[in-house]
């Protein structure tokens, strides 16, 4: 699973971080770091909860095969 981060939409509510601080990393201002997030297999539930917590809808859950593959490739590197 991959989380697509719409960085410009983030307004620093930090609700994702409140759910899963190890998955959703914030900058010094408290806004999410740019770049999509590849989620490790065991973290999927927590990551989806974090993504769903976003009041701005800045986090999109990508469950397509390509997303799964990218996680797989990453885990092999």
């Amino acid at each position, binding site marked *: 699973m991959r989380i697509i981060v719409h960085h410009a939409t983030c307004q*620093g509510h930090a609700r994702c971080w409140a759910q899963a601080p190890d998955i959703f990393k914030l900058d010094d201002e*408290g806004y999410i770091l740019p770049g999509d997030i590849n989620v490790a297999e065991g973290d999927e539930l927590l990551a989806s909860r974090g993504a*769903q917590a976003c009041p*701005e809808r800045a986090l999109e859950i990508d469950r397509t095969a390509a997303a799964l593959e990218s996680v797989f490739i990453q885990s092999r590197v």
Partner: protein
Amino acid sequence: MASNPVPDHVPPEMVRDFSLFTSAGMLPTPNGDPHAAVACVHAGPPIFYSPYNTRNGRGTWVITRTRDQRRVLQDAETFSSHRSIFASVLGENWPMIPLELDPPAHGIFRSLLNPLFSPKRVMVLEPVVRERAIALIDRIAASGTSCDVMKDFAFPFTVNIFLGFLGLSDDRLDIFVGWANDLLHGDDVKRPAAARMIVAFIDELAAMRRKEPVADFMTFVVQAEVEGRPLTDEEVRGTGVLLFVAGLDTVAAAIGFDLAYLARNPKDQDLLRSEPDRIGLAAEELLRAYPTVQMIRVATKNIDFEGAPIRKGDYVSCATMIANRDPAEFKCPNTIDLAREDNRHAAFGYGPHRCLGSHLARREIVIGLEEWLARIPGFRIKEGTAPITYGGHVFGIENLILDWS
């Protein structure tokens, strides 16, 4: 109070007799529930025109659906925040910063101030906040089995933290609460008088910190630079005044509404007391059910919005208390479910102006509830008393006499 004439471009069928200032339950009401009172708008259209929906009697469009409020508040280009609410009380025109700035200036000041209020920064402040809550509640518990939560806990607690930000001691706490009260709820004489006192106080504090810097908020502001230059006097003032206005009333009101709810719902009270791990989630639900602020934007151009002909200069109201009771967004919105999940409520607003103090406010509320429930046994509204609630620009609760004898 007379309402302004409805502008010609507003179709008469879109006008509704509703206002956060004058509708039933909005004026000070014993045992009132202004949040439930406004929820009735969801029986009507998603957007309508309210002929009297600001303190000075101007009409606004009222956006009721959460989804539409998100759209308005995320689009700062179409819906401007520049209103000079505070300055206009003095017949002046300068913005509270960053609240009344639009992008791109807004972003510059937000970036400057964000680190001071970030989630990580708030974690550092937590021990001081908790210590203050414990000291106040211990004193209340030692002195009897009843108190006025607003006067004895909610205000001293939140104002103390605000004063800590400003590097000031507690000795002028009552004066500040008085100013805030006059500013938010006073008449046409008291409001400008309070505004003048606040401006003079902020100007004086800034001058003091320029001369002798200490480790506090105003020192940071007078030493800060934006775009390679120090802040102007007006910018320092606009920033200081916002901290004053935003920090004084809202969190205290939230704590008041929350404890009033728990006083009336002993089962929920017992549950949170015996399982304090639930307080974090419960506080989110209470923020959803009892938010305090109405955001107003000014249209910068003509736009047809969900069937409404919004014209340049029109006011557009996004009331958090209305969004948070939207049945399209929240299942059974008028039921308070302290275990509610997926609670993306609007209490701190949406878009670039998301409440700068939201992380601190959340911690203050959670810590306040945790320490109150840990130290005060089963409490209820004291017999023969009635909390007085009110609507308006900032919803609130005047008194809350609890009894645990």
